[in-house]
């Protein structure tokens, strides 16, 4: 499977920048790797986060009606302080809740119409069907941010729609987002294992196992690096993964190096992309990039 993935992180805890715009700029030259859909996850300062933001995918002819019903279901669990619809994506801001899964289940009650795509105190995922050229329609792309990841998809094994687009969030845990280039061949086995732990899958996309896998490991106390090392061992198939959490950005590469990935790091930032052509807008000319070796796990923190 083709697909293009990107990631960027400002390394200094004090620094924020136009991460959303940077990700969009990096994805545009990668559109040939995946013109079917595109999306980004953008992380803002974790320390300043106070309310929970949900991104809900709307799949109904009457988008306003579906949005209103999703909002009403959310309000049964937690007070909604803001609701904005951007195309087929509803952005709900709610006051902090105890158990996020109860809120997600309530909104998800009619999955044919609405599905929660992501939840986050300091992150948001936005997606669209088609090439990545107009992702900047989403307000989050203009906000100062600390880090983020992006994906432009060439679908080979499941539907082309908003729900099957990446990045995927962990849904029942906040602020975990994943982009994946490749194919997880033991997807069904991993899916059954995660379903037994209570994770509810909303798509037929093999990549959806990854955020739940990461979440299940992090909940058990693993560090992101340990989690990704386990992923390299337990996930079968071809993959380059970029995983984002509130303060970390991680990369994992499969044992047979079947997908391309370029990494570049300066004193100020780290940038990752499927192809070098995506890196030229974010790092100075002459900075050396490299291709991580097989089974490589890299994690940057801020």
């Amino acid at each position: 499977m083709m697909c293009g993935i990107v990631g960027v992180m400002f390394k200094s805890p004090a620094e924020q920048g136009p991460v959303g715009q940077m990700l969009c700029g990096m994805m545009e030259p990668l559109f040939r790797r995946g013109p079917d859909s595109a999306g980004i996850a953008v992380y803002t300062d974790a320390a300043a986060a106070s309310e929970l933001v949900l991104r809900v995918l709307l799949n109904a002819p009457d988008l306003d009606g579906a949005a209103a019903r999703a909002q009403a279901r959310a309000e049964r669990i937690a007070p909604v302080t803001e609701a904005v619809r951007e195309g087929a994506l509803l952005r709900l801001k709610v006051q902090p809740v105890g158990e996020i899964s109860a809120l997600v289940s309530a909104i998800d009650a009619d999955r044919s119409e609405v599905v929660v795509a992501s939840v986050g105190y300091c992150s948001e995922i936005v997606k669209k069907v088609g090439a990545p050229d107009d992702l900047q329609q989403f307000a989050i792309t203009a906000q100062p941010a600390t880090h983020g990841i992006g994906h432009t998809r060439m679908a080979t094994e499941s539907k082309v729609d908003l729900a099957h687009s990446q990045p995927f969030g962990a849904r029942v845990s906040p602020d975990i987002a994943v982009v994946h280039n490749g194919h997880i061949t033991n997807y069904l086995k991993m899916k059954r294992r995660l379903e037994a732990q209570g994770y509810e899958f909303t798509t037929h996309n093999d990549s959806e196992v990854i955020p739940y896998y990461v979440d299940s490991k992090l909940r058990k106390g693993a560090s992101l690096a340990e989690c990704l090392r386990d992923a390299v061992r337990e996930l079968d198939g071809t993959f380059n993964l970029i995983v984002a959490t509130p303060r970390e950005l991680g990369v994992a590469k499969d044992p047979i190096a079947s997908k391309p990935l370029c990494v570049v790091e300066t004193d100020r930032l780290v940038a990752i992309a499927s192809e070098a052509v995506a890196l030229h807008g974010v790092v100075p000319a002459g900075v050396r990039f490299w291709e991580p070796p097989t089974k490589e796990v890299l994690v940057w923190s801020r």
Partner: protein
Amino acid sequence: MVTVDCEGRTTREINQEIKALLRDGIKEIRLSNPNGRHNLGVCLLAPVKLTIDGNAGYYAAGLCDGPEVVIRGNVGWGVAENLMAGTVEVHGNAGNAAAATLRGGTVCIHGDSGSRTAISMKGGVCIVEGRVGYMTGFMMQKGTLIVCGDADEGLGDSMYEGTIFVGGTIKELGNDAVIKEPTREELAFLTGELQRFGITGRFDWKKVVAGRRLWNFNKKELDVWKVAL
């Protein structure tokens, strides 16, 4: 020397301009602002000095016969694929499958090179000043691969012929690859090849060749099957 600015042009336009300059007898061309673009400087079949001044993407200087190509940056997958003659020198890192199916001439990568470097190499010389990735030299058939740094897993897997020299450590040999002692003549050859590209240093050379157990494959040897597959 003529400079071709890649900015604002399609890859096809750039490569067609290079061909037009060659027809006009130009012998030295520089590409500015390559910005990681794929397929630059491909199918050069005449003696020309081409400098790519920056990073190049996939298949830079692929399918060439006779040029002298210098890339002042990093490259993506498949640099100098199937080079027949001439030189391709990369002043940076290379992605996967650098010098794949190399048939002649010399490829020199001054940085690290990714997985499957010199896969199915059929002649010529490939030099990597840094380390090489997984399955480097896979199914090599002829020629010389010189790795000054370390080699990752699967080095020389299923190689038929040819020689790999490694100056650093070898994480793991591939199937049927074996280590032999380099001869004095071979060490002199290595020194000469490295000097051509200004590479100096002290290296603990290991010579890797085919063990030839896979040359005459007996399908009844189950242990060999298990290892090979």
